[in-house]
């Protein structure tokens, strides 16, 4: 069951995580759904981080 506090906080977190570069715009929707249902596992986090690192290296970015 979603709760009011989570519905307010969730989008703020998604925006901040997106701005950090961990996820891209395409991933944001699924990320938010999983965040609000508590379904992001440790393995998911690792995948997000690895993909973000991969994107950053391709972009030549030092972000992260």
């Amino acid at each position, binding site marked *: *069951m979603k709760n009011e*506090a989570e519905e307010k*906080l969730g989008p703020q*977190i998604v925006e901040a*995580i997106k701005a950090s570069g961990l996820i891209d715009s395409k991933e944001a929707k699924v990320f938010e759904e999983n965040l609000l249902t*508590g379904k992001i596992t440790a*393995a998911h*986090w690792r995948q997000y981080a690895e993909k973000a690192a991969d994107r950053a290296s391709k972009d030549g970015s030092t972000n992260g």
Partner: protein
Amino acid sequence: MVRQMAKRIDKIQLKCFRGATKPFVLEMDSQKHTVLIFGENGTGKSTIVDALDVCSNGGTGSLEEVSAGNHKHKFLESVGNTGELEVVLTSEGNDSVGRLKASGIVVSGPQHIPMVRVLRRSQILKVVNAEPKKRYEELRSFVSVPNIEQCEKTLSEALKAINRDHTEEVKARNDAEEKLRRFWASEGSSDGTPVNWASKRLKQVPAGLELEIKNLEAVIKNYGSLDEELVSFQETQGELEKSRKSLTKIQKDIKIKKDKKKEVDEALIELLQSASEYLGDNEKLESCPVCEQPIKAKALKKKIDERLELENELVTLLAKQKEAEAEVKESLSAEKESRKNITQSASKLLKATLEYQKAPNSVIKIKDSEFSQLGKEDAAKDSQTQLAKNLYAIVNKGSQALSKKMESNRKEKEQRSSVEIFLNSFQEKQEKSKELETTQKWLGKSLEILSGKRKQFVDEVLKDVSKTVKELYEKIHPGEPLGDFQLQLDERYQGSLDLKGRFGLAEDILPQAYYSESHLDSLGICVFLALAVKFKTDVVVLDDVFSSTDDPHIERFMDLLHELQSSFPQILLTTHYRPLLDRYRYERGPVGKIQLVELLVWSIGEGVRHTKSKLAVEELKINVDAVSMDRQVVGAKSGVVLESLLNHFSILYGLSLPVGKRPTLGNYFDAFSSKLKSKLTIEKMEDDGKTTKELKELKELIDKLNTFSWVRNQVGAHFDFSSLSDVVVKEFGQCVLNLAGLIACDECGALPKKNRSGSYFECHCSLTRLHPIQIPD
């Protein structure tokens, strides 16, 4: 279950639920925002509250705080229950039905039932007095974000796992580097670092090392083969010499025998031996195969054997000679084969050696020209063997150096292999640990964001709530030196909520250490209400929350609740405190906005029962209007209502009353100055709150009531043996009703008491005003 629009509860029906041993129905007045349920202890207040709580929030209501094992929901059933437990909440015409299942109360019906938040007396203490962690637990339903916290937890786990992996990779890298360091140190520590040295070393591949090792192996192998062949050749030569010597000796012996016996005819002996053998094989022969003369084969053989016996020794020697000759022949053949093998082995050794000595640091040097005849078929066999022996001698001379060289090359090869393995391992682990460091940074940053945002969000909520708490608290305790409450998460501990406040000039104090019990009660209720305001709440339930609060604060608290009606669609308040009920019964509060419910004495046979509480003026009116009027009741009730109204005036204007005894009606009337009476006016406003609808002076009515006040004592309170007529008693009652009807607001039912304008008192809804604001000079 999804919460949508705010809702009210219209009706509660209970069957076999806790104290409701008999069916219980409570209908809520849709025109009243607040329901006040009064009941003395043990009349069923908690039964009603638990029904709301369990159906809306799950769990077991007030049983949560009772030590009753893991299946507390079983105790939700009424004692001696014979039917099925059922709780029906009706909201907007829809019934939500809760029934008891193995897992607890299961609610079926419309998806959207009102969000009910319940505050019990016991929770107030936890909100205020408990340790920060328990306080957090009590308020968790408001401030927790469980799904986000779960994701934060898995993120933290992912980061820890990455940290572990990284530590392992770094350790493996350091191990590989340490091994390289040992090789590096043993090689003189050149090229700056072990890794640089190893990289450089592996790049400088000695081109001939593998080939040299291969050629060296071939030289050593063929050298061994030649060695074996030479030994074998030596043996065959020995055998040849030995057989030759044996033959020579036999020939010498035969010569001696022949010399001693000159007539010996060797040919004849051989002929006789052959004839004997022939006759032995042909015993039935009847004629000589040479002369064809008739013979007797057996007899002839016997005769020949006798002759041969005579020549026996010589014969033996001749036989040995034959054997010896065969042996010599065999040895010669073996010698020839051995020479051939020697030549072949030597040729191979020569080839391997010539190949090997191409290496720049070769330990053997031979001249190819010296062995050009080796292996040539037309070359003399002795020279071939000699060449082989020469070659063997040269290689044999350098064999020790060869072995040393071989060992050195193998060591070099193994070391290079090890260095390569450790360098590869170092580089692989180095790369992996860098990858993990990057992942670590991403995860660390994400955790920082997630955790920071969550804390910031909760802090903002708490800050906002703290502000509301302060505002609410100041309405209950205006002008007191307590305040500035702050709820804040303790950064050091997860799920820990600090509560701090101000006491006079002292800031950041723990309220529970300084505040009185009644202040802490108010604070706890304010925290709950502030959170309920902040987060969507349809129905606020306050279950018997007053215990130590005094009347003026309860008064202000109730005013506060009425102010909060815009924040919640419905408020349900239970109390065992009778003055709170009487406050409304005597119209000291906006009775038009509150539904009064009074619970009757509970029994197992009757269950929870209730009745609608009547206002004092309603009861009086019923009695005044009764066809068969009870004059004593009218006299008594009129006196009580009048006393309540006059008491209200005395509080508003600070009228002087006798100290140390209960004021009588006469005392109240005497306290009115003529100036005040002459100015007392009720102003009723139109719904716009600006236009005067009715203006009525009270002096005449008060004076008239003053003349009737003795009726209360004579008829209502004492044995009455007078001829006072019912008409007088009825008129007294009617006058009291008139005064009450004038003063009490037609809209909200409350008496004017608020000084918002500074020039008159007004009721809760501001549609009834009382002038003046103070006694005229």
